[in-house]
């Protein structure tokens, strides 16, 4: 792990103990300039994590609690006639925000969801024919309540596909929870989190990630993995080409975080479950879970290491 990134993780860990994995992944998503979908029960520290991360990296953070009556204009802003008679743009929640925490995104109406998702993809909002670019970097951490809770609906597959990774934080273990309880005794630990990474430096890093070396062998591996997912017997909808693109991006970020400037097959394998878990729809009759299917794919598709050495043809 690069020392700069290691520092960020340590800062965030001051607030959330025992969640190093999740923190690193979100940081990787930030490096890869993608968005995160957290699939979790309430109260495990999603908001805390987002706020701590934004503090450690020196970003502005905003939180939107989605309910069925949140409107698109609340997010993207709206135009309003002011007393002098001119039409003024009033920015919404998205403008000026680097890190947006969208709580319970699956409780919002479809209109609101699509407004948010368009902003995520295009990194801009359009109001009354005018386009306003969003801040850079722009990271959305959306949380999703388990389906079945009142007032929720499935996030459509097409929208789920736009998130770079889906994560589950899960409950902390005994030691982590004890540490958390103890840390709250002397005031809010959030105050102790300091900015260790400048925003400009983060943007530079994002650029570096984009220019990393990715050999054909790795692209070949990504392609074979995604294509194998489409023909797997338990899968009805496999990994989309966008999924393959995201896999590439996330693998780059992973390699960059490791301090390398080239991507290896192990990087792809490491990020594969996170990137692809929400892109695979299983057949109804299948008895495997998504995780099992993904492990199956990793096992059955030839690793690029072997191919590089044995010069196998595709």
């Amino acid at each position, binding site marked *: 792990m690069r020392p700069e990134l290691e520092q960020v993780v340590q800062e965030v860990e001051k607030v959330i103990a025992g969640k190093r994995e999740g923190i690193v992944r979100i940081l990787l998503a930030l490096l890869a300039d993608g968005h995160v979908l957290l699939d979790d029960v309430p109260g495990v520290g999603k908001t805390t994590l987002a706020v701590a991360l934004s503090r450690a990296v020196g970003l502005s953070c905003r939180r939107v609690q989605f309910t069925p009556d949140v409107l698109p204009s609340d997010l993207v802003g709206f135009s309003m006639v002011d007393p002098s008679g001119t039409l003024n743009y009033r920015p919404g929640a998205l403008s000026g925000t680097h890190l947006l925490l969208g709580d319970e995104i699956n409780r919002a109406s479809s209109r609101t969801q699509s407004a948010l998702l368009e902003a995520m993809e295009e990194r801009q909002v359009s109001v009354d024919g005018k386009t306003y670019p969003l801040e850079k970097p722009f990271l959305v951490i959306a949380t999703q309540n388990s389906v079945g809770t009142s007032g929720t609906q499935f996030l459509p597959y097409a929208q789920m596909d736009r998130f770079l990774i889906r994560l589950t934080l899960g409950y902390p273990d005994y030691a982590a929870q004890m540490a958390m309880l103890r840390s709250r005794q002397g005031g809010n630990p959030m105050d102790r989190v300091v900015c260790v990474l400048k925003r400009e430096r983060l943007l530079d890093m994002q650029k570096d990630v984009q220019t990393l*070396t990715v*050999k054909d*062998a*790795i692209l070949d591996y990504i392609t074979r993995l995604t294509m194998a997912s489409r023909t797997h017997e338990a899968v009805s909808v496999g990994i989309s080409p966008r999924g393959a693109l995201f896999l590439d991006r996330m693998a780059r970020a992973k390699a960059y975080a490791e301090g*390398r*400037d*080239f*991507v*290896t*097959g*192990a990087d792809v*394998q490491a990020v594969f479950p996170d990137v692809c878990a929400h892109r695979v729809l299983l057949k109804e009759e299948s008895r495997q879970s998504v995780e099992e299917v993904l492990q199956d794919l990793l*096992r*059955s*598709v*030839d*690793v*690029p*290491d*072997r191919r*590089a*050495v*044995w010069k*196998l043809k595709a």
Partner: protein
Amino acid sequence: MIRRISGLCAWLLLAICLYFFENNTGTRIVLLLSLLLPLIPSVRASLLRRDSPEASETLQPLSRTLSVPWEELFGDVRTYQPGDPVNRIHWKLSAKRHELLSRQVSFDDQPASAPCDLPVPAPDRSAQRKKRAVRLPALLLPISACLLFLPSIRMSAMALANSVFEMSEQSNAYLYEHFPVSPDTSLLPALLLLLLILGILLGILLLSGSRLLALGMAAVCVIFQVYFGLSLPSPLQVALFLLLVLWCLARPLEKRVLLHLALCVLTVSLLVCLVFPGTDLSVETASERVRDLLSRLTGAQTALLSETPAGETETRHLHGRTLTEGSQEAQAEREFQLVTLQEVQISQPPWTGLLRTVLLLLGVIAALILPFLPFMLMEMRRRKALEAQKVFASENLREAVLAIFQNITGALHVMGLDGGNLPYCAWENQLAEKLTDGYARHFSECVPVFEQAAYSDHPLSENQRQQALDLLYETRQLLESRSDWRQKLRLRYGECLWVASPS
């Protein structure tokens, strides 16, 4: 190249000789096949070429952990000499015999360091001179065969052939169509020519050391003996084949090789002396067979003659004169039938001779080549492995490191100790489980070198190559120390040279 030319010349010679002495279809086919034999690339490649000792010596340091020498495979040991490396000591045997024994390895005296130095061998003058020397007899060979076109020598050769036929007829129940030659023709020119050709062939054999030529001569010898049913006395036979076969083997000879050699000689001798009937029969037995055949035929004849229809006898009484004439005609016809029947039975259908020749030829080739097959395969593997090892020292460090890793992972795969379909950096656990912790650690320390070679554009350093090579040696030593001779053989045979997928 020269060896190839000389080999082809020898076959050409054989072809010319056969053309002049036989006009039988079977022999023509032998001729054709014998001409085709050197064209089979694998036979030619494995027999004709023999890598020069210089080349294998230069590659020795690299191959020292890769190709286990034969002695070690079969546990050839000697008493411990001061200076033998400790890891060469055969502890098990030493404990048994209460004295230190060390495995005998040909490169014991070479220092273990600097396995990467590959001195380019200076072109050997004497080898080139040898090549030039081979050229002359190789050219002489077809020229001397062309002497057969001279009428006097040709006549004499035919007389020689006739005498061979006579010898064959004396010892077997064969019949030959002799060449029309005046009885006072001298055999001397043909014998001299034969001696000349033999001399030239031996000269080429000595100068070039071509194994194919030796095999070819052995084959001609066997075919000659089987075809004419003339066999040499057994000791001479064995000696001859021993000599020829000895020639075909790679030197220096080892115990196992000699065993194989003996087997080979035995096979050929048995094939010639026992399996093919008529070749080693005494005159009495042969003539008894002919007598049996004739008696069976005459039995059939009398049966045919005595079988006369009853109606015919009556008519014979009635018309005495005409009847006797008619019966005479009938008898003549029957006799004619009998003669043809006899001829058909004595002279076999034409295709049996052909078939016999083909089978014979195949048998001889198989008997000559089969015993060498394991050696040839091993040799090919070894040569390929040496080729692959050349890449280890190549200028292109990236390729070198990839080749080294191919060798490492291939060896692990052959022994079933690899990490399967996982990236190499994830092999550590499995290696620690199946091999040793220390090795697993070294392996994962070395993986970044591989990753850099495979996935990045960074230049590699000489140190990294050395690191990979060290891992390779460690792998080989570890695997060898843990395997019995069968696994060693597998390791050696595998030699990590799969062209396609290892699975």
